[in-house]
């Protein structure tokens, strides 16, 4: 018996709807931290990243696994539960890994002027995720929000590409936050 077959949603329609609502909330209110539950993915995948994959990925969303996340247990779990094709960096619609393994970011799709949506969404696994650190301003933020981003320069460079650029989810355990390409980031 292979553990890859376990740990998916039990009630996919309801659970994925809740997760999608949470994903939309954190993406539209950068800095907001929510919790995602309902998946039991294999290590080293966090619960939040697992739920995001189950919710956002299917056979039509090529996924790149970076670094330690490109291992047999994760690949098999994704193959059964999402069916997402596992691809190299350039073809990725989603990419999953820790911040270091996802570098260099320049290799990811940032969309086309006619289709800015054809850009990668990064799922960045974090050692910690807290509402402090870098200052976030822009759409969805009343005044300023704070998030423990892995760095600042990369997100400033990404903002400069707007309306092109990548979008990010950050996951740690069950916690999820997000940073869309529209957010201005400053160091504290």
């Amino acid at each position, binding site marked *: 018996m292979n553990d*890859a077959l376990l740990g998916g949603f039990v009630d996919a329609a309801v659970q994925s709807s809740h997760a999608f609502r949470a994903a939309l909330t954190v993406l539209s209110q950068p800095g907001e931290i929510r919790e995602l539950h309902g998946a039991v993915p294999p290590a080293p995948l966090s619960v939040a990243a697992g739920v995001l994959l189950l919710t956002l990925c299917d056979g*039509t969303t090529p996924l790149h696994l970076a670094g330690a996340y490109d291992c047999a247990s994760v690949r098999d779990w994704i193959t059964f539960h999402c*069916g997402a094709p596992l691809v190299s960096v350039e073809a990725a619609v989603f990419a999953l890994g820790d911040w270091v393994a996802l570098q260099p970011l320049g290799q990811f799709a940032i969309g086309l002027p006619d289709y800015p949506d054809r850009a990668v969404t990064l799922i960045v696994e974090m050692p910690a995720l807290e509402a402090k650190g870098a200052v976030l301003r822009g759409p969805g933020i009343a005044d300023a929000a704070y998030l423990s981003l892995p760095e600042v320069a990369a997100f400033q460079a990404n903002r400069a590409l707007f309306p092109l650029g990548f979008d990010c989810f950050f996951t740690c355990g069950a916690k999820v936050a997000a940073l869309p390409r529209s957010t201005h980031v400053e160091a504290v």
Partner: protein
Amino acid sequence: MYVAVKGGERAIDNAHAWLAEERRGDLGVAELSVAQIRAQLSLAVNRVMAEGSLYDPDLAALAIKQARGDLIEAIFLIRAYRTTLPRLGASCPVNTAEMAVIRRISATFKDLPGGQVLGPTFDYTHRLLDFKLAAEGEAAQAATAPAAMEAVPHVMAMLDRDGMIEAEPLGNDVPADLTREPMELPGSRALRLQAITRGDEGFILSMAYSTQRGYGRTHAFVGELRIGAVAVEMEIPELGFAVEIGEIELTECETVNQFKGSKTEPPQFTRGYGLVFGQTERKAIAMSLVDRSLRWAELGEDYTGAPAQDEEFVLMHADNVQATGFLEHIKLPHYVDFQSELELVRRLRAEVFATQEAAE
């Protein structure tokens, strides 16, 4: 100026309740079941599946019932439903050479291996109304004859052997999918075929007819028309092998067209291709003519300005759900737009009258 309006909820609810009553009709007449529609109006079901672009006879029959027999409305219902389904994957390309044919005819070869099989056809009927059908209790019985139970070869494969017809070499490119990405023109032939097979039968028929009457003439003959069941197979990633997931009925038409040759190609026959869900031969024949007509550039033929040669004209107007949506929306409240039109016309009239008065 934008003026928001609201209201009419009760009128709308009552309109829909009346619609439901009208759908049921005279209570003294037995209600039509979905199974009856599926079994006895199967060509309507097939059309709804083909243009709804979803193979599910029960759903198509239900849609026809709900739409009171308005097939475009039924197609709309199926299109709406299919958007709610998760995409589980794509099948391996179906192998129509292995089709269990119930009908298979060729207009170009009379003595073809496997024979001409008429199947359940309207051809050669006299198109006289059959008043016996107005009475109940009809139970016709089809004749049978010993059958070989083996696949019959494609007619084109025979022509292909001696190079008389252009080859259609096996490929495995991932085709563009207009249900996932906006259609970008010029499109590939694969994209065009997807758009045509789900396009409106009447529109595709008229386009094909226009090529026959001389608007982009391609001199088509039906090399082969076949109808029958084919297996659908899909790779299952977690299993690592392909499995049959079901069986569907298809209509396939291949036309043979004259071709004088070009700088790179010797004179030979060329091909048009039609493949449609269900028993839908008018659509499949029309599809193959339109497919061939749209290939003028690839084959180095002249563009004569014929509508059926114009990819954008054909592909952007073939979809009856898009067409009906845009057409019918103009009957819905446009008070705001129209208010500004009224004011503009009043002002122009006032200016004209003022000029006239000044002149007098």
